[in-house]
């Protein structure tokens, strides 16, 4: 799965996620990627989220929507919301994966509960910051 979250100069948030799904999947299996609130969510003044990981559990935990709700209604910071969701029910139910998120002020957060996530952002100088492990 791949994804991106962005905040533009107008203050608009957006999220995009795309995937080939699960190797050896059958029966028209659909994961979290196209499920709004599962693997993808964006709301101005709140947060944009794109998820990757075990799709069925990301759906059952409505991971992207849960992060947004904790921030909107619980006043959680982006770091706190992402950490509590990825290391909360999602992990306790056996879910592995992570999210990228960006808030209304442009703060970026990467949260994962597994050994690695291919990820990148851009620093203030316009240089790419890339990490894997």
């Amino acid at each position, binding site marked *: 799965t791949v994804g*991106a979250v*962005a905040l533009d*100069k107008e203050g608009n948030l*957006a999220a995009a*996620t795309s*995937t080939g*799904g699960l190797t050896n999947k059958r029966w028209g299996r659909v994961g979290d990627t*196209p499920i709004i609130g599962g693997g993808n969510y964006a709301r101005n003044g709140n947060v944009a989220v794109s998820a990757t990981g075990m799709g069925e559990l990301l759906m059952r935990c409505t991971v992207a929507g849960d992060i947004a709700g904790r921030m909107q209604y619980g006043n959680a910071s982006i770091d706190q919301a992402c950490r509590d969701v990825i290391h909360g029910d999602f992990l306790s139910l056996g879910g592995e994966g992570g999210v990228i998120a960006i808030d209304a002020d*442009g703060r970026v957060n990467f949260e994962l509960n597994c050994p690695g996530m291919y990820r*990148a952002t851009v620093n203030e100088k316009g240089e790419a910051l890339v990490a894997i492990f």
Partner: protein
Amino acid sequence: MTRPFSIAIHGGAGTIERSLMTPELEASYRKALAQSVMAGHAVLEQGGSSVDAAVAAVTVMEDSELFNAGKGSVLTHDETVEMDASVMDGRNLEAGAVTLIRHIKNPIQLARDVMQKSPHAMLAGEGAESFAFKECGYEYVEQDYFFTDRRYNELKTMKKTGGVALSEARYPDEKKHG
């Protein structure tokens, strides 16, 4: 004063075996990730929308066979690709999603078109592709375009074990989930 803009991307998460990551392969991943995030950054820098920036970044990764999306997607039990994608615009809570896509080079662009050019939030399978070809002028792409030897070998391994989670770590991220 310019308002802040920012972008972040991911190319999947899971068990990525550091010991199996050769310097050459790691360099390839880092280059592709940098290209992706800079493609989105360029859109934002020029005053483009966050939707277009996110779609531009994802398109770069869909076009790279390193990632499980677009070209290089994992294979189904029937040795086909079935891809999913979604876009959400925080400005107005509009959303577009597609699922079970088989013949569209960049599903993320179709998801954006579903959001912007249809009254619906999600289209699936043949209907989604019919919308793409007839309403949006997309090119039909043969399944061969998406296939890679790496994914075929992964599928053969998974068929032997009968599972769906990747379990043989011949590649650094064969346990990567989604």
